[in-house]
Structure formats: C-alpha cells, structure tokens
C-alpha cells in the first residue's frame, strides 16, 4: 500500500489517499475512509475534514472524498494512463475523467503500470551497462560526428550548390562589402594591369580544376581589414591595396597568396563553412540544449571554438594547395613562407595567438609548413 494524492480534474482540490494493487486492479482508498489505515498511520483528521468538505462542495463530479462515499475506487490497467517511470519520481497516473493520482513509486505499482520488465527507456537509464556504454560512447561519437561526420556532410552539401547560387552569393557579398568596409583601389592603373597579367598566367597554369575561367581578381582599398586577401565562392578574389604595398608589389609573393585563395575556391570552402556552422550550431543546441545562464554562454564559446577549428582546417588545405601548385609550376614554396612572414610582422599585435580562439592557424606553424616544403624541393 502506498500513500498518494488524488487530484480532481476541474480544480486544484486534493484528497489524500492510499493506493494498492489488488486482484490486478489499482485500488484507491480515501485515507480516513479505511479503518486499517486509520489505525496504522498517524492521520491528521483536521486536514482530511478540510479536504472532504472542499471536495464535497463541488457536487456531482466528485465521487470520492465526501464522507458518505467511502467505497474504494477500482481501476483496470486499460482505464489508466501513466507517464513512463523516470528516476525515483512519484508516479503520475491519469485516471478516467482526467483525475490525477500521484504516488511514490513502489516495485509492485511499477510492475503493474509498466509490465514485467518495466519501461525500456527507464531500464536503460538505470542499468549499469548502459551507463558505462553511454559514458564511453558519447565522447567517441561526438568526436566522430564533429571531426569526421560534419566535414564530410559539409563537402556533400557544398557540392550540391549550383554555380548560379554561388555567383549570386558572391555578388551580394561583394556589394555589401563595397558598401561597408571596402573602397575603390588607389593603386596606379598600370601596376594593377601588370599584376593582372601575372595572375592570368598563374591561373592558366592551375588547370584541370574546372574553375580557371571563374577566377576574377579585384583590388580594393580598406582601412578596416588592412593587408589582406579573400576569396568569394564563385572565384572572385579580392586583394587589398595594403597587401600589395606590404610586399612592394612583388608578383611572386602575390602569386602565392593568389594560389592560397584559389585553393579556397577550388575546394568550395565558403559553402562548406556555411554547412559546418549550421550543423555545429544545431548539434550543440539540440544535444546540449535547455541549458541556462552561465552554462549557455559557455556553450556559445564552445560553438565558436568548433567553427574556428573547421576554419583552420580549411586554411591548412588552402595553404597546402598553394604549396603543391607552386611546386608543380617549378616555383619555390618559400614564396608563401615569405609573404606569411611579412604579414605576421605587419600584424604582430596579433602575436597573442591562441589557436582555440582564432579562425586561422598560428602563422608560425604555417610558415614552417611552407618552408619545410621548400626545403625538400
């Protein structure tokens, strides 16, 4: 026999009851209606009188709680609807007419409600082997999903995007940037034309990728982004005036940068990044959702760390693409190391590098990577 609370369907009235399983039926007795209960347990009669009065006032919908009807209520399994067992929570059992019985869990009641083995999910939540398996599998699967699964799915996703969409995206992005942070280039026309000629011959040598005709180089001035270059998904590549000035217009060094950016385009990195950010955001919010306050803001940091890792991976791929292509063109990969070194000298306030919080890998490592390629040549 278990103590419980019987709630009415139409208001917040409560009746203290006892519940037991007799002849495979759930039997509910009013706590003061049963002589045996009264003798065994300490009952505060005043409390029950209040309950009895309150419920009696409610009229016809009440068939338990009034002092006249002390007959126990009997329910078959088909009459009741219980929420699955969860931890050591009191069982919530919905009776006909939306009344609710809440009582502490007991093995007998659990068995009657859930059948012999109990509900499957609650079994998993309480059994040691499942616990151990989960503790081991969760980190492993998360690792596989984030390190293997998402990049793989991102590549698949990116390859589905038609060129027209990428072209549209690039046009919109460039005009938004032109409106906000970029200004027309102030480099002399002649210098730009000469650089373009050099770039053209590089692009011609990068063959077999099917993107040669899409590469279009632009020059822009910008106070905000400094010496920099970036690629848009359709093959538009933008150099800032500051970058050209930084390397004194050295064609070989700019070619190395161009190849790096072509690497991003050839490997569809922009579109992959969209997919990876989307997947990572969704996964983190659905797997670890319903977190609050400080923990949530911490998960926000976690999400950007994950995205930075993906971005760094893309940078490595683009670096290696550039190094490979330089070798194929019989040129020195040290050019790439040189231009990286120049960039890092220029922006050495960024020396505070912690690879977790940056979208680009550590410059030092990138220089070493390019130099090691040059050394073996």
């Amino acid at each position, binding site marked *: 026999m278990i*103590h419980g*609370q019987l*709630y009415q*369907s139409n*208001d*917040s*009235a409560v009746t203290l009851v006892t519940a037991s399983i007799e002849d495979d039926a759930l039997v509910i007795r009013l*706590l003061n209606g049963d002589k045996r209960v009264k*003798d*065994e*347990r*300490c009952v*505060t009669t005043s*409390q029950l009188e*209040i*309950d009895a009065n*309150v419920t009696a006032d409610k009229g016809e919908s009440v068939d338990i709680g009034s002092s006249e009807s002390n007959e126990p209520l009997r329910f078959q399994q088909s009459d009741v609807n219980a*929420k699955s067992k*969860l*931890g*050591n*929570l*009191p069982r*919530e059992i919905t009776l006909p007419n939306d009344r609710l019985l*809440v009582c*502490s869990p007991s093995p007998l009641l659990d068995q009657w409600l859930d059948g012999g083995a109990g509900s499957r999910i609650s079994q*998993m*939540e309480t059994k040691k082997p*499942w*616990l151990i*398996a*989960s*503790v081991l599998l*969760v980190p492993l*699967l*998360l690792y596989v999903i984030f390190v293997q699964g998402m990049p793989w799915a991102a590549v698949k996703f990116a390859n589905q995007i038609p060129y027209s969409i990428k072209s*549209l*995206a690039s046009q*919109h*992005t460039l*005009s*938004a940037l032109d409106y906000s942070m970029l200004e027309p280039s102030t480099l002399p026309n002649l210098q730009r034309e000469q650089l373009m000629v050099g770039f053209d011959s590089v692009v011609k040598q990068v063959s077999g990728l099917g993107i040669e005709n899409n590469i279009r180089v632009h020059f822009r001035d910008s106070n905000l982004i400094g010496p920099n270059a970036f690629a848009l998904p359709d093959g538009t590549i933008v150099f800032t005036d500051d970058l050209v000035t930084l390397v004194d217009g050295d064609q070989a060094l700019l070619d190395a940068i161009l190849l790096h950016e072509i690497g991003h385009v050839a490997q569809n990195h*922009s579109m992959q990044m*969209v997919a990876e950010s*989307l997947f990572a955001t969704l*996964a983190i919010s*659905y*797997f670890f*959702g*319903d977190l*609050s*306050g*400080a*923990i949530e*803001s*911490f998960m926000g940091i976690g999400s950007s760390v994950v995205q930075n890792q993906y971005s760094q991976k893309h940078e490595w791929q683009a670096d290696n693409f550039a190094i490979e292509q330089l070798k194929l063109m019989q040129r020195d990969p040290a050019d790439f190391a040189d231009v990286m070194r120049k960039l890092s000298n220029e922006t050495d306030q960024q*020396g*505070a*590098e*912690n690879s977790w919080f940056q979208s680009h890998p550590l410059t030092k490592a990138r220089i070493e990577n390019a130099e090691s390629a040059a050394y073996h040549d």
Partner: protein
Amino acid sequence: MSSNIDYSTYSLEELKQARATIDEIEHPERAQELEERIVKFELPEASSTEASSTIATSPVATARVLRKGKVSFHGKASEFFSIWIVNLLLSIVTLGIYSAWAKVRTNRYFYGNTDIDGHRFSYLANPLQILKGRIIAVCLFASYFILSAVSPIAGAVMVLALMLLTPFMIVLGQRFSMRMTGYRNVRFKFNGGFGGAFVVFVVLPIVSMFTLYLMLPWALKKIDEYLVDESAFGDIRFTTKLSTGSYYLASLGAVGIVVAVFIVGASVMGFGFSSLIETLENGAPLVMLALLGMYLIAFAISSSFYTALIRNHIYENSEIPNVAQFNSNVGVMPLVWLRTTNVIAIVLSLGFAIPWAKIRSAHFFANATEVTVLSGIDSVTSVNTGSVGATAEEAATLFDVDVALG
C-alpha cells in the same frame, strides 16, 4: 512505527527540525501537520483568527495563511547523470530525433522533483509535439542561415524581420511553456497578447535607445511586469507591483561592477604585469588572457548582482491572490560562487559535470525560494485550453527567445 506522534509539545525549532527530516511522500499528513504547527508558531494571529486581514500584502481579506515553506528540490546528481548521458547517447545515435524525448524527460525530471507544499510540478508536453516543432524550427533556421550566407542583404532584412517578430515568438513560447506546466493537476496559462508584447519588447527598448538607455531599466521593469501579470495559475492571474527604483539600482550596480572590475584589473595589470611582460619574449598572450579573465569576472559578478536583486524583488512583490505569495533570498556572492564553480567544473570535466551543475543550480534556487500557501489553494479552477497550436509555439521557443524570470 509509532501510530501517533504528538507534535503539540514540540518547540518551533523541534518542529522545523522534524519537518526538515520527514519523508513527505511516505508521511504527507505528518509533514502537513508539522507545517501547520510551524505556521502557527510563526504567524500566531494569521492562523488563529480566520478571515482576518492580518496578511498585509494580500489585497483580499478572506485569504488565510495555511502553510509557509521553502521550495524543495529532490533531484540527485547521480540519478540525473545517468538519465542525461543515456538520453544524450540516444539523441546522438538518432541524429537529434530523440532530443525531443530527451527534452521531455529532462523537464519532467526537474519539474517532478520540484515540490511546493508537498505537491510536485509536472511537465505535460508530448515529445511528438516537440519533435514537430523542432523539425519546423530546423527548417526555418537552416533557410535563414543559408539565405543570409547567399545574400548578406537578404540576411539583414531577415534579422530585422525577426526582431519585429520577437514579441510573437516570446508570446508563443510563454504560452507553450506555461500550458505545459502543471501543479495539483491544474495548468498554468499565459494570457499575454501580441500587442502588449510588441510594446514592451520592441517599442520601449527602441524608445529607451533614444534616451541613451537611461530609460532601459524602466523598460526592463515593464517587460517583467508584463510577463508576470499575464501569467495565471488555472483561472487566477498573478499580480505584481514592481518598483522602478529597484531596477535602476540593479542596473546601475551591474554597470558599476563592470567599470570597477576593469579599473581594478587595469591598475593591477599596469603596475604588476608591466615588468613581467617586458621580460617575456611575447607578452601579448598574457595580456589577452588577463583581459579575457577580467571580462569573465566582470560578467559573472555583474550578471549575478542583477539576477539576484531582480529575482528577489519580483518574487517579493508578486502573488497569486488568495492562493500563494512568494519570497526569494538569492545572495549575490553565493550566486557568483555557484555560477563560477559550475563553469569551472564543466570545463575541467570536459562537460561531464553538466548534470551535476544543473541539479546543483536547481537546489540553490529552490532553497532560496519560499512560498506562503493561502487558503484559496484548494479551489483554483482548471482552465481547459485544449492542445492545439502547440507546434508553432514549440518552434518559437527554439529561436532562443525563451524568456525566464530569475
């Protein structure tokens, strides 16, 4: 087992001791008797003279104090850990589909273990409802995400549209979470309309921008007032009377703390680190780290200050007339300690401490919350709200516009 314990000879301390140790599921009637006797000790007039107006804060003179006690939370970290990790495994294996079931089980665990006056809360949402909502939300979120990647301009337009839609989302989200909360087999309800939400969530914050945010604390007060006033337990609405002064105090204090932390931090760095940094080959990482640490300390203290003050203020000044009154005594430093140690534990445990942190927080807030139950508690009428339209509401909660009080 003794058949009768005579509590009438107990002193107040002994009664409290007995109440704190009794298993109220095993012996609900004893727990209730103890509580009544405690209340009689603490509020002699209130319980002896029925229907008197001794409860100064209650507008209705007929309400009588039945019991007064802390919210108790019965959850255990070890029990919840295995629920959490198994549900996480199932969510991962099913590529997120099971997360709807996991959400229901997590919420059921926390609601069902929260106990006011011997009665547990219940979480009533159906996992399929939530799954439908999540699928819609994922589609909307993905299309928003991809669209803004394709065209930053379209993305910006959508952000603006979403901002204007925020009040609708908040109303839908509040309706869903209130309706899915039950206590004594009576559901909560949110009555707020879109118009009122638009005023407090869009118009007032924009207006306050034009006053250099000087009006912002007042706007924040209006938001909280709206959220509480439009909530109801069954057919009885919450009422609240918040003071603008408290919001200014909390906001100015929060800003002051940030300023103070940075001033102290800057002078410590200026005097203490300067020589150290010069001797290091590359001092920049140290500066970055120090700045990050300062930011975290400032954020932890100032947000805890605001949360504690405002939560306490809202609880003290809100009630369900004739049914319940509330009290909250969250301390600022205990809250800072709770949050800081939670984050540290989660980082050091690589996330495995998340369930422990959640259980611990629930204990903390339950412990700081006191509810006075009035005589109207037994006769709150249920309102049949039906179950239609929940999908849109659940979808709305996923755009991170969930609002929470304290």
